[in-house]
């Protein structure tokens, strides 16, 4: 799509209650050179407010490129993108307001820590968005407690003296302190131990369920995708090839494996049961839920 076309295209109908709405989004790295790489090809998608969406796909499938569009770290080249009412294809979107509403947690977010104290680091974003000093501390406190850290104990420590898991949580708090309406996370659990993973995911789910935060999570761990997401977007070669609830997506075992993705253990288990003629309800995804469902089936048969 050329630039003139983009400007003259009729106003898109953006569905109500939409957090993210993309239509015909394209992006090419190194446009002018021989190394041009089409990272996004005609991406159409829409995420409603309050959804928990997982983005999966092979390395180089365009997921990170897409995610970086969401708070204008990468500017729209062609197509339309609307995030919480901000038209990102406009020449000058209100970046400050946008970035305050869209919190972005990068891979290994602990590598962005820089300040002398944990408090100062968590306040960095708040300060940039022009929040008053007294209010900042309160918000930082809430965020640190949200991620399960003891505010009084940790606030004056240097972020570099903390353990890996604590650093990650401080970095998370630095994003959450801004109270974003959309939380975008690029592999938030990479490099964490199983307990750390569960903690982060529980926190994200709580934000999603209790505070109504829209969550977009890029992940390579299909098990965590399966258990947490309401919907999964599969990227391949820059396009969204599947947009399905996790249970339905992972029924397509052959297609998933053809894309070098892995079928989560519980999904494989349920798929096998279904082939044998037992039907497990779609909402049962964790080991415990599936166990209960199997027991219920057993009881029903025994009766």
């Amino acid at each position: 799509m050329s630039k003139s076309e983009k400007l003259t295209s009729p106003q898109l109908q953006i569905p109500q209650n939409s957090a993210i709405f993309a239509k015909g989004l394209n992006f090419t790295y190194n446009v002018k050179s021989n190394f041009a790489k089409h990272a996004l090809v005609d991406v159409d998608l829409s995420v409603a407010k309050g959804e928990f969406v997982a983005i999966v796909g092979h390395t180089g499938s365009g997921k990170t490129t897409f995610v970086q569009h969401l708070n204008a770290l990468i500017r729209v080249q062609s197509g339309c993108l609307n995030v919480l009412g901000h038209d990102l294809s406009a020449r000058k979107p209100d970046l400050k307001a946008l970035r305050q509403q869209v919190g972005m947690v990068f891979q290994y977010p602990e590598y962005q820590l820089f300040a002398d104290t944990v408090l100062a680091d968590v306040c960095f974003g708040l300060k940039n968005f022009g929040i008053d000093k007294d209010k900042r501390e309160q918000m930082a406190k809430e965020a640190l407690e949200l991620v399960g850290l003891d505010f009084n104990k940790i606030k004056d420590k240097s972020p570099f003296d903390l353990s890996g898991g604590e650093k990650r949580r401080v970095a998370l708090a630095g994003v959450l302190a801004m109270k974003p309406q959309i939380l975008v996370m690029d592999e938030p659990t990479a490099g964490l131990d199983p307990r750390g993973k569960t903690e982060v995911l529980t926190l994200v789910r709580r934000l999603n369920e209790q505070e109504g935060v829209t969550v977009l999570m890029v992940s390579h761990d299909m098990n965590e995708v399966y258990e947490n997401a309401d919907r999964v977007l599969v990227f391949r070669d820059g396009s969204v090839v599947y947009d399905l609830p996790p249970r339905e997506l992972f029924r397509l075992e052959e297609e998933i494996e053809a894309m070098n993705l892995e079928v989560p253990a519980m999904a494989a288990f349920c798929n096998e049961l279904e082939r044998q003629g037992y039907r497990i309800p779609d909402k049962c995804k964790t080991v415990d839920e599936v166990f209960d469902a199997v027991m219920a089936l057993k009881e029903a048969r025994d009766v």
Partner: protein
Amino acid sequence: MFRDVTFGQYYPGSSFVHRMDARVKLVLTLLFLVGIFFVQSFVVFGFVAVLLLAIIFISRVPLRSVLKSIKGIIVLLILTAILNVFFTKGADTAEQPLWSWSPWNGFSVEIYVNGLKTAGKIFLRLVLLVMGSSVLTLTTTPVDLTHAVESLLKPLKLIKFPVHEFALIMSLTLSFIPSLIDETDRIIRAQKARGADFDTGGLVKRAKAFVPILIPLLVGGFRRAEELANAMNSRCYEGATKRTCMRVMKLSWRDFVASFLVVAFFTGVFVLYGMRNQWNFITWLYY
């Protein structure tokens, strides 16, 4: 943001120049860099330029990639040229200014033909210097280059200079540049996402805005260094003792041909320079 760093960028190829021994290329490049300072006249600069263009042509590196290296010093180039135009006096007191302007008594701006000439020569000298050295880095991989340095510095071992360690530091530095650029990019994005603003405000504010980038970068640098040291230790790295090279550098006919031509050319340049008092009646060689 930092994507257009050309320093050390290798342009793959298998031309005559690419296949030359890195040591020879390094020495010839040094000769070239020194030689340029002995060039006196525009005509000889023309010869040097033709030589350089010929080398670039033989190396099959697109001229555009070589010219890109100038982009980085363009401000320096223009500034030096301008200063020279205004501050160079006439060749002798008899020379009349080409143009002069005296806004008040005791102060005047004058431009002499000599000034223009000096500026032009300095401009050419810098351009050729940068282009010449970028031909070396464009046609030689950083690994070969460090091997070359190590090999050429070997005599210094006699005075207990740690040649191998020096070469290792150099190659590590070079190989860390791309990953540091990546990391910088990533940190900038992360801080931007937290509302950091690098493009507005006064000088002090902008300088301060870099703290959130520099500190994580520094910390990351130390982290990487430590990881690398551990990785090397766990592979039993113990410095120069009994290490051999996978690729042994050998001189070939190419190196002799190239050396002969380049050395001959600059011998000419040095002779011209040495005879500047005897031969200065051949004006096109000297002015």
